[in-house]
């Protein structure tokens, strides 16, 4: 346990919790597991706050801890359960949805079918508000790699959802669009 945590750092940490949780859900597709991940991330972050330099990017630091935790567990798990991919996708697809949200359901299902690294890159840049440079640092890869993952993710989503160039950005997302 760190000696002294400044109130501002503590508040900043708490302030990132909901975004961190949304990132966790987008990675693993399951709220229960996501909450486990956030919990573990919070523990690790709290115990290593002395290694965090105040004034640097706290959000990126937390996201890095969370994704490293997720991917190292996933590697372990993969050795144990071969069809982990399939079971995550199934869990997510069977989540109860509000009526009238079919297009979001389709989109969410397509998102889970992306390879992990592509989904991560797309979410970091397209939803969590990170630059390509920050996303590269979080994922521990080159900026060009992030850019190509994001491009491949978009193209793959577009294929899965049957989007074409006539799709209006304001129209609902449907397979027949």
């Amino acid at each position, binding site marked *: 346990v760190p000696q002294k945590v400044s109130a501002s750092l*503590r508040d900043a940490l708490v302030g990132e919790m909901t975004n961190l949780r949304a990132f966790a859900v987008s990675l693993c597709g399951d709220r229960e597991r996501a909450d486990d991940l956030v*919990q573990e991330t919070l523990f690790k972050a709290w115990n290593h706050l002395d290694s965090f330099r105040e004034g640097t990017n706290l959000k990126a630091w937390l996201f890095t801890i969370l994704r490293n935790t997720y991917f190292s567990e996933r590697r372990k798990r993969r050795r144990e359960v071969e069809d982990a991919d399939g079971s995550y996708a199934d869990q997510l697809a069977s989540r109860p949805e509000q009526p009238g949200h079919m297009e979001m359901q389709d989109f969410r299902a397509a998102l889970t079918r992306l390879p992990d690294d592509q989904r991560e890159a797309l979410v970091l840049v397209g939803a969590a508000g990170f630059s390509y440079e920050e996303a590269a640092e979080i994922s521990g890869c080159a900026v060009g790699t992030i850019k190509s993952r994001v491009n491949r993710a978009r193209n793959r989503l577009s294929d899965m959802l049957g989007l074409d*160039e006539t799709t209006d*950005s304001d129209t609902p997302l449907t397979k027949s669009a």
Partner: protein
Amino acid sequence: LSPNLQAHIGRHLRAVFDEVANEPLPDRLLRLLKDLERSGDE
């Protein structure tokens, strides 16, 4: 991919993300935060 399709995907992606980000934190995480804060104050 056209800017139109990129915008279309971006809009849905943010909706999926924000749906979770706008949820209140579950009790167990709130409890953990409280515990950590207490341990930090000691």
